[in-house]
């Protein structure tokens, strides 16, 4: 009986602590070690201020941004989606990336300055979004929502991302 009481007491204390912890405001943003940016959607050419190299050139009027959105918690499938997407972009569009016509941005939507992306792109989970920017204004965007269904087939996944991205790049 004593043993039971002790176990119950430990459980109650643990659960209470856990709930208090859960209810405290989320401040532990940026748990991932990756470089993340806090770009804004409509401010196109200035969007990549955090990039390592200055990609923008004044002549470029049409540009495509591939965003991968994630939160503080990074699940196995989510990391896989990010890795496959990055691979699809980097292997398929090396030229465009170099020329600044295409940009790859990884964004943590749990950071307060990035929360607006959730409403902007109607996000409901970790997502890959392609955005078309003409003369500094976003003209259209698409959430590549099939990535979750294609997760088990890397080849199809990469082909799908490259096809969608190419369609955005070719539109001028």
């Amino acid at each position: 009986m004593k043993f039971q009481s002790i176990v119950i007491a430990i459980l109650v204390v643990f659960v209470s602590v856990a709930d208090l912890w859960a209810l405290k405001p989320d401040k532990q943003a940026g748990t991932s070690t990756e470089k993340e940016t806090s770009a804004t959607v409509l401010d196109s050419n200035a969007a990549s201020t955090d990039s390592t190299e200055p990609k923008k050139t004044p002549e470029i009027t049409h540009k495509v941004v591939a965003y991968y959105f994630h939160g503080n918690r990074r699940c196995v499938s989510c990391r896989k989606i990010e890795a496959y997407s990055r691979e699809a972009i980097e292997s398929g569009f090396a030229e465009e990336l170099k020329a600044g016509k295409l940009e790859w941005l990884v964004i943590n939507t749990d950071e307060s300055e990035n929360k607006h992306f959730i409403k902007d792109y109607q996000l409901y989970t970790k997502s890959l979004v392609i955005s078309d920017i003409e003369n500094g204004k976003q003209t259209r965007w698409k959430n590549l929502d099939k990535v979750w269904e294609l997760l088990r087939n890397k080849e199809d996944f990469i082909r799908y991302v490259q096809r969608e991205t190419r369609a955005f790049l070719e539109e001028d």
Partner: protein
Amino acid sequence: MDPFLLAAASACWLGILTSISPCPLATNIAAISYIGKRVGTPGKVFLSGILYTLGRMLTYLILGVLIVAGMLSIPDLAYFLQKYMNTFLGPILILVGAFLLGLIRLNFSGSGISERIQNRADRYGIWGAGLLGFLFALSFCPISAALFFGSLIPLAVQYESEFLMPTIYGIGTALPVFAFAVLIALGTHSIGRAFNKLTQIELWARRITGVIFVVVGFYYLLVYVFHVDL
């Protein structure tokens, strides 16, 4: 093939895909053990499985109707459920596990009353499967959110079927768990009957379920509350 039937089949497949993806694995194991724990009476296992399925169906049906009717915004709902449901699932699972292990008891007094309470708890136990389905379906993880909000809802909108598509999706999400639970329970039942040890096995099944609930509960606490990268 009729496009509507094809859409219904897609809804079912999306459900199965949700269920067999790695992220709901922990809750699926908990559900399988909970449904299958009454190895002594396969009828009750079957009934628990049906109730679990109904619980999941109900969740998706309510969410589907509210979203299609435009009463809830997808981003708000999706982020709210992913953030809070998973957080509270841990403590709930630990408490249910403690109850199954007998660490928390309902009988407070004499034997007659305790027997009645035990019977009631038994009945609630079966209804609990429905509650479990409802709760587990509400605790979205990235992949279930993607498949439900991103694939199933557009399908329901396209075919103007905000009742049927979420319902079929719900059945799909419960199907693998239901099948596993029934298979395991039937297997254990025949072994138990062969060795004439059904009562003992049932007691152990209940204990094992309790341990699984506590372990899964702690897993959820560590991952979703303390943000441990497991």
